[in-house]
C-alpha cells in the first residue's frame, strides 16, 4: 500500500537520444494510495514502458520513482514490493491452484496458518475455491488468468498491483465477470492498482482515474466522465468513445463557428483565440442529432445498426461525422437529411488543445 510519485521521469531506449526520440517524455505525477488507475493508449504510446519502470524491469534514463516518499528508482523488481499480472496467464503448471496462490506468501516466510487463511480468502473472492486442490496444468485460459490475478492480489502488504492488459485472452462474456470482480476486489482490498490497456471500455470501467497516454506523454488524466465530457486534447476525444468525438476544422468568430459554408452557434463567445492556431470544433455523436427541424444539411452515407443504438455516418461540409440515433427513433433515410448541433456540447480546440473557460 503506497502512494506512487513519478518525479521528472523520462526514458529513452538508447543513450544520447533527442527529446523527440524519448519513449517516455518527462512527466511528474502522483498516484494516491488505494486508487485504481488505468494507463490507456494505443500500442507504442509508452504505457508499457511506464509500467515496467514502476515495476522495476526498466530503469528510467532520468527522474525518480518514489513509493511513499522512498526513492525506489534503483531497486530491482523483487525488492519493490509490487505484484504484477501479465497479458498471458503465468501459472506454475505442476503446482495445485492452492500452491500457486500460496507461493508468493510462502516465499516470504509467512506461517502456515496465515497462508491458508489468506489463500482461502482470495480464492473465495475469485470463485476459485472448488478448484483449490486441482493441478493448474489442466485448467482453461480463464481459470489460469484468475490464478494469475489471485497471485497478484494475495500479498496483503504490496505497494501496488500492476496489470498488463490482463483480459486479452478472455472471452467477452467472461470479461464482464472478471472486470467487475477486479473492481470489487479493489474495493475489498484497498490496494493501489495500475491497469494498462488499449481498450477504453476496460480502462473506463475499471479505473477511478484514467491516464490517457499518447506519443510517450500523458495527455490527460481524470475521472472517466471528465475525460468523456471534456477531453482536453483532440486525441482524448478521438480515443475515448466509440465512435470517438467528431472533429471539424473551423473558423471561430465570437460565439459562432464556421465549418465550410455552415455557421454553427456556440454556447459562449471565444474572444481571444491566438492567431495562427489551428482551430477545430468537436462534438460527441450523441450530441449531434438528426432532426427534421435541424438547421444544417448533411448527406447520409450509411447507417450502422448496433442493436441498442444506430449510428448514422454523415458527410457534413466535406467532413465525415457520426451521429447517434437512439433505440426507438426511426432509422434515418436519406441521402439528404438535416442535423442539429447541441451548442452547449461543442468544444473548441486550438492546436489540438481544448480552449478552456475564460
Amino acid at each position, binding site marked *: 500500500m503506497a502512494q506512487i510519485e513519478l518525479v521528472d521521469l523520462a526514458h529513452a531506449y538508447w543513450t544520447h537520444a533527442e527529446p523527440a526520440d524519448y519513449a517516455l517524455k518527462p512527466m511528474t505525477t502522483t498516484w494516491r494510495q488505494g486508487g485504481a488507475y488505468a494507463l490507456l493508449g494505443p500500442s507504442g504510446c509508452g504505457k508499457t514502458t511506464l509500467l515496467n519502470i514502476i*515495476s522495476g*524491469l526498466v530503469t528510467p534514463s532520468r527522474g525518480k520513482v518514489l513509493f511513499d516518499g522512498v526513492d525506489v528508482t534503483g531497486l*530491482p*523488481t*523483487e525488492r519493490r514490493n*509490487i*505484484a*504484477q499480472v*501479465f*497479458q*498471458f496467464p*503465468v501459472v*506454475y*503448471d*505442476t*503446482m495445485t491452484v492452492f500452491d500457486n496462490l500460496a*507461493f*508468493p506468501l510462502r*516465499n*516470504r516466510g509467512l506461517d502456515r496458518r496465515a497462508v491458508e487463511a489468506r489463500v482461502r480468502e482470495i480464492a473465495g473472492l475469485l470463485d476459485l475455491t472448488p478448484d483449490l486442490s486441482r493441478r493448474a*496444468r*489442466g485448467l*482453461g*485460459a480463464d481459470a489460469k488468468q484468475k490464478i*494469475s490475478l489471485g*497471485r497478484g492480489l494475495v500479498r496483503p502488504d504490496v505497494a501496488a498491483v500492476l496489470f498488463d492488459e490482463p483480459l486479452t485472452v478472455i472471452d467477452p462474456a467472461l470479461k464482464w465477470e472478471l472486470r467487475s470482480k477486479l473492481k470489487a476486489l479493489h474495493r475489498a482490498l484497498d490496494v493501489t492498482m495500475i491497469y494498462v490497456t488499449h481498450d477504453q471500455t476496460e480502462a473506463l470501467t475499471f479505473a477511478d482515474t484514467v491516464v490517457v497516454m499518447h506519443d510517450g506523454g500523458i495527455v490527460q488524466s481524470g475521472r472517466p466522465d471528465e475525460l468523456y465530457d471534456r477531453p482536453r486534447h483532440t486525441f482524448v476525444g478521438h480515443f475515448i468513445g466509440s465512435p470517438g468525438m467528431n472533429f471539424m476544422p473551423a473558423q471561430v468568430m465570437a460565439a459562432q463557428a464556421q465549418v465550410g459554408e455552415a455557421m454553427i452557434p456556440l454556447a459562449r463567445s471565444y474572444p481571444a483565440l491566438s492567431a495562427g492556431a489551428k482551430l477545430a470544433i468537436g462534438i460527441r455523436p450523441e450530441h449531434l442529432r438528426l432532426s427534421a427541424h435541424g438547421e444544417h444539411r448533411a448527406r447520409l452515407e450509411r447507417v450502422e445498426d448496433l442493436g441498442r443504438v444506430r449510428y448514422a455516418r454523415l458527410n457534413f461540409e466535406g467532413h465525415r461525422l457520426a451521429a447517434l440515433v437512439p433505440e426507438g427513433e426511426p432509422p434515418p433515410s436519406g441521402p439528404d437529411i438535416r442535423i442539429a448541433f447541441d451548442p452547449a456540447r461543442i468544444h473548441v480546440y486550438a492546436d489540438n488543445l481544448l480552449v478552456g473557460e475564460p
Partner: protein
Amino acid sequence: MIKSVDNRAWFLVLPVFALVAFNAIVPLMTVVNYSFQDSFGNNQFFWNGLGWYQELLDPSSELGGRFFAALGRSAAFSLGILAIEVPLGILVALCMPRDGAQLAIGLVIMALPLLVPWNVVGTIWLLYTRPDIGLFGWLINAVGIDFNATKNAAQAWFVLIAMDVWHWTSLVALLCFAGLKSIPDAYYQAARIDGASRLAIFRYIELPKLGRVLMIGVLLRFMDSFMIYTEPFVVTGGGPGNSTTVLSIDLVKIALGQFDLGKAAAMSIVYTLIVLTVCWVFYTVLVTRDSQTVERPEVPS
C-alpha cells in the same frame, strides 16, 4: 458424393520403401533366418528352432551368462552416462549466456565435440589417457596415482564414461538451452515478483518446461549409448578382460570372432527388441504427456 482425396503423394514415398526394403528388411530377415539355425562354417546350416533363444535367455547357460553380463554392462554404461550428462547438460544450459556474441561463441564451442567422428573421439581419448605419452595419463601418474586404463577395469570404465560425457553432454545442453529459451520472460518476471528463490524458479518453472526436451534428450542419449560400439572398441577393445565388453562388442566377438552366426543373430534380435521396447515406452510417455498439456483452442469440450 465425391471423395476424391488425392492419393498420388504415396508414389513419392515408393523409392524410400524400396530403399528401406533393400537396406533394412532384407538384411533383418537374413538375421532372423540365421537366428533359428546353427552353422559349422563352410556355409552349412542346420535348423535349431528356438534353441539359441532358450540358451540366450537362460542365465545359467554359457551363452546366457555371457549375454546377461554384457547386457548389465551396457545398461550400467547407459545409466552412468545419463546420470552425469543430464544434470550436467541442464547446468551448462542454465549457465549459457542468453544472447549476443557470447552466446554465439558458446554455441560454437558446445557444437565442436558433436562434430568429431566417433573413431576419432576414441583415438583422442586412447592417446590422452595413455600413461606413457598421454597428457592426462602421464600427469596423473606423475602425481603418484597409478593409472593405466588397459590394466585396471575401474579406470577403463572411468575413461569410457568421461569420453562419452565429453562427447555428448553438449547435445543435452543444447536441447535444454532451446527449451529454456522458449520460456516467456513473463514467467521469470512473475517469479521475481513472487519472491521465488533461484532454486524455486528452476524447480517450478524451468524443470516443468524442460520436461519435453529432457525426454527427447534422455531417449537419444539412451539409444546412442546403449548401442555404442566404436569408442570402446578403439579405447579398450572390451578389456581389460571382459570388463568393458558391452553388448555390441560382445555381439561382434561372437559373430566375427567365433563365427557363431546363429548365436549372434539371436542376440541381435533380442538386442533390437530391447531398444525398440525402450523407444516405445518413451514415445508413449511423451505422447500422453503432450495430450495432457497441449491446449487446443476452438474445440468444443
